[in-house]
């Protein structure tokens, strides 16, 4: 059962360094051979690179546990990244903070209630400028996810 009181809960701010080697590794892992990632000495990061923030977080930085979604019935529904300019480049130090921004319900097409929760992470640079935002939407279905071989 999802906890509606999680809305507004934030984690501690954490630091994330955008590194060239990590950008290169991430390009390889997402089948990119784009020279913008592999050859530029100061490459931008990939559109989904900020997902690697989990390597920088302590448990105290991640408020998702407040949602208390059932892990057996929880799924990643949507993910969004917004950039207020080119994506953060190698060498950028980001200051990130995650907040649970919404919890809402929808009726599933095949019956049953789906409960969605949204976590927004804001990424500021050293000058305090908001450079990127990540929005993760999770869903808890009223039944375990079906097998789809």
């Amino acid at each position, binding site marked *: 059962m999802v906890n509606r009181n999680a809305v507004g809960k934030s984690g501690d701010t954490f630091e994330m360094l955008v590194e060239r080697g990590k950008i290169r590794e991430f390009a390889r892992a997402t089948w990119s051979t784009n020279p913008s990632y592999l050859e530029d000495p100061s490459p*931008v990061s990939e559109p989904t690179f900020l997902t690697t923030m989990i390597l920088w977080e302590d448990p105290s930085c991640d408020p998702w546990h407040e949602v208390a979604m059932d892990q057996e019935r929880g799924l990643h529904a949507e993910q969004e990244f917004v950039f207020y300019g080119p994506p953060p480049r190698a060498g950028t130090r980001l200051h990130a903070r995650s907040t649970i921004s919404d919890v809402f319900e929808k009726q599933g097409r095949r019956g049953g209630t789906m409960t969605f929760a949204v976590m927004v992470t804001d990424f500021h640079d050293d000058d305090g400028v908001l450079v990127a935002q990540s929005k993760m939407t999770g869903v808890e279905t009223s039944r375990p996810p079906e097998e789809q071989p």
Partner: protein
Amino acid sequence: MTDIVRYQGASGDMNAIHHDEAFAQGAGFPSPLALGMMQAGMLATWATNWLGAEQIRRFRVRFVEQVWPGDTLSCSGVVEREYEDAGERRVDVELVCSRQTGGVAVLGWATFVVEGNGESS
């Protein structure tokens, strides 16, 4: 499977359901399944090859069907809209990552700046 393991290492998401057969079967799946974020990353690769790594301003995905080891994925996209925003020329595109069955694995929407608007920093 190797692609999945490599993506897991790169992303930091080491959930065992994506590489440990016994664990995945214990959770009711026939085998480990791919990470939605891996398909999303591949769709982003396809989109940035098309419209530029530095030009992207928004990337959103919805996870639809699960993806399994051995699946073949293909990506496609179409321009939905071209417009001016804050003095920049932008395009909104709709993206699809499909499985070999024709089923949609990931739907995506992205915004790119086009026509070289001062991307020089």
